[in-house]
């Protein structure tokens, strides 16, 4: 997929689905078959990172890498770097972020029980 097609929602979806890191790889600036799509990717990446930081996600978890089809070595090194960086940061476990573990179910049951026990008010 062209890097210009990478919508920030793809990255959010990966992270929200449990990914600990995301790499966006694209052709070098100036070498775009579609003229300027990788510049769009560059700007989207900047704005995406700005937002991720605000959401408390370490910027190193999402990395943008320019690598052409002839640069296998470069891509491999970038992947190794991403894996090392993410390993250092540890698991993200994003879906656990909205677990409510503090007495939610008990509280829900308590409401139903309390309503059952409440005195009937004569009409």
């Amino acid at each position: 997929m062209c890097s210009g097609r990478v919508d920030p929602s793809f990255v959010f979806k990966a992270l929200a689905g449990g990914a600990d890191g995301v790499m966006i790889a694209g052709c070098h600036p100036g070498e775009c078959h579609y003229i300027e799509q990788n510049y769009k990717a560059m700007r989207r990446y900047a704005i995406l990172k700005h937002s991720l930081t605000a959401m408390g996600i370490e910027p190193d978890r999402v990395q943008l890498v320019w690598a052409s089809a002839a640069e296998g070595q470069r891509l491999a090194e970038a992947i190794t770097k991403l894996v090392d960086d993410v390993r250092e940061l540890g698991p993200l476990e994003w879906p656990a972020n909205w677990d409510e573990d503090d007495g939610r179910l008990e509280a829900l049951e308590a409401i139903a029980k309390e309503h059952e026990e409440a005195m009937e008010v004569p009409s």
Partner: protein
Amino acid sequence: MSDKPKGKLAVYWAASCGGCDISTLAIDEKILNVAEAFDIVLWPCAADGKVRDIEKMDDQSIDVCLFNGGIRTSEQEYMAQLLRRKSKVLVAFGSCACEGCIPGLGNMDTRKQVFDTVYKEGSATVPENPQDVRPQPETEVPEGTLHLPVYYDTLKTLDQTVAVDYYLPGCPPEAENIWKAIVAIVEGKLPPAGSVLGVNTTVCDECKRTRTEKKIKKFYRTWEIIPDEETCLLEQGILCCGIATRAGCGALCPQVNSPCIGCHGANDGVTDFGARMMSALASVIDSDDPEEIAQIIEDGIPDPVGSFYRFSLAASLLRRKKKVST
């Protein structure tokens, strides 16, 4: 409307400001037509009706429930479950129920952070609290145990809590759109379940400003610039969310020289409103230099979550800021 047998209507509010109820009353005298078509079995803001009476009703015996507000406490979750069970059609009414809205921005904090702000740091509601008293879900008194609702860390939207049949967008939904929705319900002319009751196009389509080519070198915050009244606000460097926001409001805000802030949420098929905004803005920033791009963004958009997710944080793919145990 009078030739049909009367249906049953419930209107409820959870984590919301009450604006949805006011907007419902803003259909003016047509509220009498609503009362003609429906028995209002519950509407805490405007009519009598007891939760206990709802509990005693048969399941599916309420024809329509208009539910506004997000789900922030156990009591609100209980009411969402109860009204879902008792209602044939449940409408997520307004931005809070649809996507969390302003109360959903509380997802940038945790319960502890919110409680610290309110009960410790001196707020308008609790100016002094030297003993650091906090609300407890359970309190023992001689007569028995008293319960307060549990306040959740994360506000959820209505459809993250129970199944929802229809969505009515807006903060609040405009009175004329509320009326259109009510008429559609009464006449049985509803779209397929799961639909948003509204149009499927962007605010830009309803905005009369002149658009040419968007090339932005600098974003201005609203207080930094007096925009000209003819040109597209985004082209003038003002972060206007009209490009990503569902229409239906008549472009009310841009009409009065104020940028769209996105209260109608995204159109069909968009999973994340903020991502849509980011994607669109990235296309119009006029620079190919990574450092300059970063500068334009950092200077011009100091609060990306407040700018891109003002109404939709709770419904976004990430839903909240990373929870840090404190």
